């Protein structure tokens, strides 16, 4: 983990309010696992950094790709950055998705702006010869992104709230039917979605990537803490460093 001024080498809109940004710097060479994130200082107008998942890595070019959605002032201000600008980045942070040796068939379930880290995961899985099936949920067609990219890696099912792309409905409408076609699932998205998936696939090995508001982003401030089930002695996990990825039953959703 380091603090670095990374250079913005690409920056463009990819869907409604959603942007893709490619950053160059040494942090790219230090990414360990898919699912890790960077902690971005948008500008000196903002007191806290913003966590954004690493969506892709090109260690050879020292580049990482981020996909972010405008949700507030900080992400709005991020859209104004230009190619060539330097960005104050802390990372790579956190524990990503582990890929156990015995994984053969993986299900990936992403919702909205939870989709990005799953893309780098899917690429890693395929590289290791694991079959990948992906279910992506978006609000609508205009908010969808990365769908074509996932198609290159395996079969993809898309659901949208309004049916403007794929099937109308929730990701869980599809994941239930896919039961049996995978031995491990990996998911990232709204907490309600994670909860629904974890309940539905209760008996399957699964990993979830969580979100919480952060202070330090490195494990020191205890801002990002989540509960663990009662039998856990420690009683908590920090999203920024114990996570953001947890075993499905490791934390209370």
């Amino acid at each position, binding site marked *: 983990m380091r*603090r670095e001024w990374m250079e913005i080498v690409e920056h463009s809109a990819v869907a409604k309010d959603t942007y893709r940004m490619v950053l160059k710097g040494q942090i790219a060479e230090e990414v360990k696992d898919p699912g890790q994130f960077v902690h971005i200082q948008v500008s000196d107008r903002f007191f806290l950094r913003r966590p954004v998942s690493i969506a892709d890595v090109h260690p050879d070019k020292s580049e990482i790709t981020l996909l972010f959605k405008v949700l507030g002032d900080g992400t709005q201000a991020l859209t104004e950055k230009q190619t060539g600008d330097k960005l104050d980045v802390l990372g790579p942070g956190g524990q990503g998705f582990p890929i156990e040796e015995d994984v053969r068939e993986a299900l990936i379930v992403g919702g909205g702006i939870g989709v990005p880290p799953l893309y780098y995961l899917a690429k890693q899985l395929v590289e290791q010869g694991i079959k990948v099936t992906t279910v992506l949920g978006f609000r609508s067609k205009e908010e969808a992104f990365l769908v074509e990219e996932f198609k290159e890696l395996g079969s993809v099912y898309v659901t949208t709230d309004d049916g403007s792309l794929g099937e109308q409905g929730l990701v869980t409408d599809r994941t239930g039917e896919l039961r049996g076609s995978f031995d491990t699932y990996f998911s990232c998205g709204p907490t309600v979605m994670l909860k629904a998936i974890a309940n539905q696939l209760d008996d399957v090995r699964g990993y979830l990537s969580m979100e919480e*508001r952060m202070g330090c982003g490195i*494990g*020191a401030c*205890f*801002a990002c803490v989540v509960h663990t089930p009662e039998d856990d002695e420690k009683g*908590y996990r920090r999203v920024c460093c114990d996570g953001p990825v947890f075993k499905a039953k490791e934390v209370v959703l």
Partner: protein
Amino acid sequence: MDISVSLPGLDLKNPIMPASGCFGFGKEFAQFYDLSELGAVILKAATGEKRYGNEAPRVAETSSGMLNAIGLQNPGVEKIVKEEIPFLKTYDTPLIANVSGSTMEEYEHVAATICKEVDALELNISCPNVKEGGVQFGTDPRLAEEVTSRVKSVSTVPVYVKLSPNVTDIVALAKAAAAGGADGLSMINTLTGMRIDPATRKPIISNQTGGLSGPAVKPVAIRMIHQVYQAVNLPIIGMGGIETTDDIIEYLLAGASAVAVGSANFKNPLICKELIEQLPEALERYGFSSIEEVIGGAHYETAASGLFRA
């Protein structure tokens, strides 16, 4: 320039240390730089038993600052002594334990347990984020005096009392701490604040209120230190919104003998190290020839600064 400072129980290589709760027990920052460079380390709060703290969200951003309501999460004093302090002891820097609690007895127990392992105690009678205890001790001078003297009587190391800014009369609290036998003061803790999200219509922080820190509160801290320096003869560790060497000089001039850097560690994990490196040159730039010359420097004359076209 020699920037070392000697305070009760603390021989500081330099007057800069991380503030309690903003540096954990050091491990996370040790990956960024050698902790031996620090003037001291103030540990995260210790309570008698393990505490989970408040529900998340525990932080919110504000203009030039942040709110936090961690709620004193910590593994309890015994575990801190066993599992956290040994790591910090591998570095050549004094340790200050932040002692918290809900009752007089808890404060005594924590102080008595942890004082053997550290160089000084910071008595946290000012945490606004726990329902019981904490802040009452810091707003009622009689309670403040009593808890100070009880902790003093069990502690084998000097005690710095950490004051809350959420009071009408900070001098009264400082005097109470002095009357209780404090060896020094630490000020300020956070100002109680709240943010409401217009979209959800609710407080952003689950605990509703949180403690405000960052540059937003610096003028309040400077004012209080300036007041207390004149009224109470105890060394002060100053904090609140420090981000630059100019900020540090402002604190020292107001009357602090050393400073702590809190939430700025979240912006830049290397901040303490960088400030330590920059301080001697900054002091020279303003014409100071020793650190003693800076401490309390704003008190030596009372005329205000003029304004000239130069």
